[in-house]
């Protein structure tokens, strides 16, 4: 027993070595730790890092992956325990709080052409006092992912789906298509009499309930097509408009789709996950962002297509943040500027995991997708038509999410009247914002 403990203690000491907190590599180079969540993007940014290291032989970039499910809590732990990465992929929904708690550094815009980015992306990263907290490096929109095999079986063409109309009262032709694609366990379709909404084998439309607050992959594009604006101004709005009847009508339609059995319930959707349901052929359509193209298109035995969701989409983008605790702020900034420069964006475009933020590099991404026979025009259509709503940026995003997400979940699960639920929720949200000032 004693030897066992001694051995374990020795192993513990040995294993304890090898931490690198000095920020310098063994051969004396400056070490910049760069963290991101998307495993598909890691090789892309590794290529950027290689090119950056050629230009800056005294700096080494170490790329670290962390799952989205653990990313933000992991960062928070890192900020507190002084082990956060020097540079990390930041999100519009998170950076205002980081800026407010002063855990990220503002970036110098001098010498960077802020007009090279798609219009609107850069200003989202600017705080009300004019500090820039990141350069746009990519952008995303949302589209309908289509199981073309099931579509053909239902006798619907991609063209019909591309031109589908939507309204919150009867769902337009989009709802008719979703109904036709739904099949119950007896083989009856959603538009046939006797369809059983409680025993559905294939849902017409999948559902991703994870981000209901801003509804990026759910209600945002649909409500926007009605002219709905969530904030009085964006970024840095001071008043939310959840009480708008157009929002209530959109959410009501969403609930109707669940009740009719054309869409899975909240519980089913959450436990199974939209992408997994789609890949298993349990959902004929899914609404998801362009960052998932490679996941969906890799599905075995299914021809996957993409169609615009209505005519509007949320328009969001990422940037890289610099942790205030970095030991090498100068080199960290150099890396961040490189990530948002044409040199790296050209690689991002050619690899086409996401769309680059620099206008001139976008065609490269489209060309790559074309080569793989993936038509991504749906994702670009909104930008061309200027039918985009920017990701809502306000203070207190985390607290507001704690009000809105559960309320909307309860709404979708229950039968409460939409107008009243949304009015009450809106009051709470605006009180929360009011409280900060």
């Amino acid at each position: 027993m004693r030897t066992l403990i001694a051995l374990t203690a020795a192993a513990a000491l040995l294993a304890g070595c090898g931490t690198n907190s000095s920020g310098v590599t063994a051969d004396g180079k400056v070490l910049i730790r760069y963290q991101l969540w998307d495993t598909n993007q890691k090789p892309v940014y590794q290529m950027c890092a290689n090119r950056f290291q050629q230009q800056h032989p005294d700096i080494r970039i170490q790329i670290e992956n962390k799952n989205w499910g653990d990313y933000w809590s992991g960062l928070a732990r890192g900020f507190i325990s002084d082990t956060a990465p020097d540079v990390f992929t930041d999100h519009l929904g998170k950076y205002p709080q980081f800026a407010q708690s002063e855990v990220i550094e503002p970036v110098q815009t001098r010498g960077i052409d802020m007009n090279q980015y798609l219009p609107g992306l850069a200003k989202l990263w600017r705080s009300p006092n004019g500090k820039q907290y990141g350069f746009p490096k990519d952008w995303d929109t949302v589209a309908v992912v289509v199981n073309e095999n099931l579509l053909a079986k239902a006798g619907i063409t991609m063209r019909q789906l591309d031109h589908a109309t939507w309204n919150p009262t009867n769902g337009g032709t989009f709802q008719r298509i979703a109904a036709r694609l739904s099949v119950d366990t007896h083989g009856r379709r959603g538009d046939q009499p006797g369809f059983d909404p409680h025993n559905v084998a294939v849902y017409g439309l999948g559902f991703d309930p994870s981000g209901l607050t801003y509804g990026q992959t759910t209600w945002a594009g649909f409500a926007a097509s009605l002219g709905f604006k969530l904030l009085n101004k964006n970024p840095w709005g001071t008043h939310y408009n959840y009480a708008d009847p157009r929002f209530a009508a959109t959410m009501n339609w969403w609930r109707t789709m669940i009740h009719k059995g054309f869409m899975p319930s909240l519980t089913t959707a959450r436990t199974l996950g939209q992408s997994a349901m789609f890949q298993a052929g349990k959902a004929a359509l899914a609404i998801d962002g362009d960052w998932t193209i490679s996941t969906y298109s890799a599905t075995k035995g299914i021809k996957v297509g993409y169609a615009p969701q209505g005519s509007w989409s949320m328009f969001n983008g990422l940037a890289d943040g610099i942790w205030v605790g970095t030991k090498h702020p100068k080199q960290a900034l150099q890396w961040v500027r490189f990530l948002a420069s044409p040199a790296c964006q050209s690689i991002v475009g050619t690899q086409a995991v996401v769309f680059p933020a620099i206008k001139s590099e976008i065609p490269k991404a489209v060309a790559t997708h074309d080569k793989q026979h993936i038509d991504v025009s749906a994702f670009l259509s909104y930008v061309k038509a200027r039918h985009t709503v920017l990701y809502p940026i306000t203070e207190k995003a985390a607290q507001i999410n704690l009000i809105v997400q559960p309320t909307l979940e309860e709404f979708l699960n229950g039968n409460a009247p939409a107008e009243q639920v949304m009015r009450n929720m809106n009051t709470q949200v605006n009180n929360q914002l009011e409280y900060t000032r």
Partner: protein
Amino acid sequence: MANTLSPATAELAGAAPARVREKPGIRWGRIAAWAVMGLILVVSLFPFWWMLRTALSTNADLVTGNQSLLPVHPTLLNLKQALGLASAKELAAAGTQTSVDVNFFVALRNSIIVATLITAGQVTFCAMAAYAFARLRFPGRDKLFFLFLTAMMIPPIFTLIPNFVLIKNLGWLNSFPGIVAPFFLMTPFAVFFLRQFFLGISKEVEEAALLDGAGRWKIFRQLIIPMSAAPLVTLAVLTYITAWQEYMWPLVTGDSEHVRVLTVALNAFKSSTPTIAPPWGPLMAATFLAAVPLIVLFLALAKRMVDAIGFSGIK
């Protein structure tokens, strides 16, 4: 435990039907006891089976809603992924890629180090404290013991932040000392548990040793410890299991790969990208593998633990 039921209880349990039918041959009480035990067995083992079933299923099969008790298309890919033996191409086809490598064997090594250190420290120091509370006389002993027991009522989450600040100031974050420290010296439960056993040891034995010229320390080491082998093993196993399953503290203080324990390493199977569901199959496979060492430990020492429960002071 059917044979420990007294005849009276057995009769009581099966009284009504026995009286009506007058068939003394059928022992209803025993049947009822076995039935209840079987039910408890199923209830406790079924989740474990379901974990194994999920681990052996393909990710695509999980969402089809098939409730069959056996995996529909059994596969070892999830286990391979958990052990880091699957290729990226296989995982992409199965739709179970993750952003982080679970690094199973490093995490396993770390878990063994942490659990062993905590167990060794806790059993040693708690035995000493328990002996002091059971036998030594000093002013305020019982009040101090009461204070000790009161500490059992403090939820661990309350001490998380103060402990974290302390460990951070000591510079022990992301190191084994930092992960082990809060559990190393004692837990009130362990002291209480052992004190009860020590109180049961007859004083005459100790007095005899005292007459022979042994000091307190010698009595403790050469008399009390060997006599309490069974409860010490029980405590060690319980401590080991608790240490193995600890999640919150190692997550907060030791999320660096070189000290990351298994429970924290399982985070590798959280959803990798927003809107993509977690890979349940590999998660369950890794969870199963993480539980195997504990099952082995338990099977090896179960007999001794049962002995400890029946321990009665002097053999």
